[in-house]
């Protein structure tokens, strides 16, 4: 039977990474919950077995329900009926299947009706769902909002809202963007005023481009301190749809991810609960929410890329021209192999990132319960630092790559791909948003450049380099040379104090770092599973050429020319 988990051995492979053992042990607090919950794991192997069995259920739902519904969901889309969003029929079926299987709230603690899974299997589920239907992956992925309630909400809020995900199949939305506050959320203007008589916060104002905006539980960013104009006046609120105090004013008609409703909302004296501390809304909570969402888009992009690749290879094997299947032509098989190689590389970076995020989040959570050992504190800070620079990196690299892969897959389909007859037409449109929402690629660079300037990326390169086995010395040498070249050019850019110079080249530097890191990760993967040997070799070939081009461009670049760029367009 078709199953998206069973047909992709990479998931089991990434679950078997050595660091996962530590993550599970911490997450399961030495497996103590088995006393209290009959579904909690007894040991590491038991936990892995549970993740695999549950992911198999996800994989089955993806193959038998979500993927077959994707076409009709894309055509039908959601609609507004009586101020409420009605999903396409397939979307409702998809969500019900996941809810019936008890999968909503996968990563929440058992106390709040969740499965207490680490992020790794949760992200794998997201990736499979995105492969089945990228638009639907948003509706699934917004349960991340529960994570934020768990991290920053009061105990009362956690008990009130979190169990609703698993028990009632509650949906969620991140309500941040406004007509004049897109990438720059500091200027959010939706008002939150405290009503002294009713003892409740009331929200008033307009939000725009809100994915799944008519959800059961919404996290809303609002200005709680009147008269302020920057981030310091913003707080985070929970709005419960039961209050029916929001007008669903407009449903966007989009290029892709059509099954996922994007709405304009008008809050009219909508009662809301403050999350955490007032005025920490943007600077702390949205940052956390955004990071989860970026990982979500990372996983979504890998899923889209995988879907596009599979469509391409299927078509290339079936389609014959000039008397043979088109996969036999060099121009086609080169594209296909590069797709596969890039997917292996970005999936490896995705789960590497998730492991650090998992580790840092679990330590954060532990810190609230007990005093951490010194070593643990050091590891917590280090993993957080690495997670913070790998998160924008994976978001940027995988979203850009999934667009390229979808483009090439459509190209392999030829004219047929341009018609609505094959799934690639939808996949191509769905891919386009990934490099825009949850922070554009250009904004990911702004976050990721810290990995370059602080030396965290170089630190990771060194850390991976030490783990390279003897047999891979030839590949290692290439990566060492690439690292040297990268360090050299980073030093050169950093020395020059011309205004905008670093920012001008930031994207190039981040991509160079990403290429080296992915090269190392593939070598390390190949040391655990020979399936990745070919990907490591071929990826490093590509990466070397790309880095060399960037090196040459930056090296030969006259900083004075930035002025030309500024004024020419």
């Amino acid at each position, binding site marked *: *039977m078709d199953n998206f988990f069973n047909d992709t051995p990479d998931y089991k492979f990434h679950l078997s990474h050595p660091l996962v053992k530590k993550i599970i042990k911490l997450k399961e607090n030495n497996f103590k919950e088995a006393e209290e919950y*009959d*579904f*909690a*794991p*007894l*040991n590491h192997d*038991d936990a892995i*077995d*549970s993740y695999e*069995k*549950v992911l198999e*259920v996800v994989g*089955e*739902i993806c193959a038998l329900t979500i993927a077959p519904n994707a076409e009709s969901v894309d055509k039908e889309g959601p609609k507004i009926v009586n101020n409420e969003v009605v999903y396409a029929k397939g979307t409702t079926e998809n969500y019900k*299947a996941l809810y*019936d*299987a*008890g*999968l909503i709230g*996968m990563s929440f603690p058992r106390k709040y009706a969740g*499965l207490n899974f680490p992020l790794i299997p949760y992200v794998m589920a997201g990736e499979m769902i995105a492969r089945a239907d990228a638009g639907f992956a948003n509706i699934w992925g917004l349960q991340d909002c529960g994570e934020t309630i768990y991290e920053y909400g009061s105990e009362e809020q956690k008990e009130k809202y979190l169990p609703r995900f698993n028990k009632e199949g509650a949906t969620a939305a991140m309500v941040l963007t406004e007509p004049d506050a897109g990438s720059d959320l500091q200027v959010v203007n939706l008002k939150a005023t405290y009503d002294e008589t009713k003892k409740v916060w009331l929200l008033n104002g307009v939000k725009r481009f809100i994915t799944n905006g008519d959800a059961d539980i919404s996290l809303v960013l609002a200005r709680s301190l009147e008269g302020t104009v920057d981030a310091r006046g913003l707080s985070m609120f929970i709005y419960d749809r039961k209050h029916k105090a929001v007008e669903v004013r407009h449903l966007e008609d989009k290029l892709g991810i059509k099954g996922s409703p994007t709405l304009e909302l008008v809050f009219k004296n909508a009662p809301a609960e403050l999350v955490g501390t007032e005025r920490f809304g943007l600077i702390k909570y949205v940052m956390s929410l955004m990071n989860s969402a970026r990982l979500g888009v990372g996983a979504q992009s890998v899923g889209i890329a995988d879907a596009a690749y599979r469509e391409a290879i299927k078509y290339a094997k079936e389609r014959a021209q000039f008397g043979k299947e088109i996969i036999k032509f060099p121009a086609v098989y080169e594209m296909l192999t590069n797709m596969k190689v890039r997917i292996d590389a970005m999936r490896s970076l995705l789960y590497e990132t998730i492991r650090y995020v998992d580790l840092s989040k679990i330590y954060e959570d532990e810190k609230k319960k007990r005093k951490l050992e010194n070593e643990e504190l050091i590891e917590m800070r280090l993993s957080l630092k690495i997670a913070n620079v790998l998160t924008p990196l994976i978001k940027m690299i995988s979203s850009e790559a999934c667009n390229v892969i979808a483009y090439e897959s459509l190209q392999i389909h030829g004219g047929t791909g341009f018609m609505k007859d094959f799934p690639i037409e939808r996949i191509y449109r769905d891919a386009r948003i990934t490099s825009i929402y949850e922070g554009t690629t250009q904004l990911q660079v702004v976050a990721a450049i810290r990995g370059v300037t602080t030396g965290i990326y170089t630190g990771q390169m060194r850390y991976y380099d030490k783990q390279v086995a003897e047999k891979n010395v030839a590949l290692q040498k290439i990566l060492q040379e690439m690292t040297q070249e990268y360090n050299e050019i980073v030093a050169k850019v950093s020395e020059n104090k011309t205004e905008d110079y670093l920012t001008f080249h930031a994207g190039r530097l981040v991509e160079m770092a990403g290429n080296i890191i992915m090269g190392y990760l593939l070598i390390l993967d190949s040391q655990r599973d020979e399936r990745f040997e070919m990907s490591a070799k071929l990826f490093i070939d590509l990466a070397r050429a790309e880095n060399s081009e960037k090196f040459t461009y930056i090296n030969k670049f006259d900083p004075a020319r930035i002025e030309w760029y500024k004024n020419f367009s």
Partner: protein
Amino acid sequence: MKPLKIIVLAKQVPDTRNVSTDAMKPDGTVNRGKLPTIYNPDDLHALELALNIKDRVPGTEITVLTMGPKRAADVIRESYYRGADYGVMISDRRFGGADTLATSYTLAKGIEKLAPYDLVLAGRQAIDGDTAQVGPQSAEKLNIPQVTYVEEIISLNDDEIVAKRRLENGVEIVSAPFPCLMTVHESSPNCRTRVAKRVMKYKYARTQTELESKSTEDYIKELHEKRNYLSIPEWGVEDINAEMKKIGLAGSPTKVKKVESIVLTAGEAKVLSDSAVDIDSMIVELIQNHTIG
């Protein structure tokens, strides 16, 4: 209404819908080692119908009964994952080689041991034999009414159950008193999915035979001492008071004369005119090759 006790008959079958080239031996028999096993599809429909009744009548208990070799315990686990309350295996080498008569006798003995019960549900037929006989024969042996080809339960109360039957030329709505047996048609709703928490809760459910197997980890054995619900009862000939002459090969009057491997090939098309001569010759040919007549 008062809760029901439902017994679902389920069978593990080779996955004949995903047959690879080496799935048949040259002599035409099934190469079971090469075929993955699955929960018989119609039986999953029967389980869904039981779960649907449980949704409508809270407190209803579902017991899944299966007969087969020890690996058939997978069917019991799968049933737990989807919402069944109990599972029982009938497994004994002496039951081997049973045809539908011996099988239905054996199942009926198992059902009697589970008595009292209100409703027995079975899939219409299994994909490995396609006889559709086991359900009806079991009802006869139990001397209870039977309703075959059930697609939907229209209503039920303490006295009767009303079902819609899917027939070749339409539907029929019939009522039956309790206890009764129903076979469930594939046009009924698909079985609900496995539930994550139940998968994790019941994944170590084992029969005694499985538990004693060398490959079973010690922690699973320890867990069985603490969690009784993980133990799947395994009944042999004596447990169900079966008569030896009615079970296994001895109890099976069906004799396989010959098994042929049929390879379907498309012959050349023949074009006939509408003249009387052509039609006559075609009829003669069809009678001769036993296609008609």
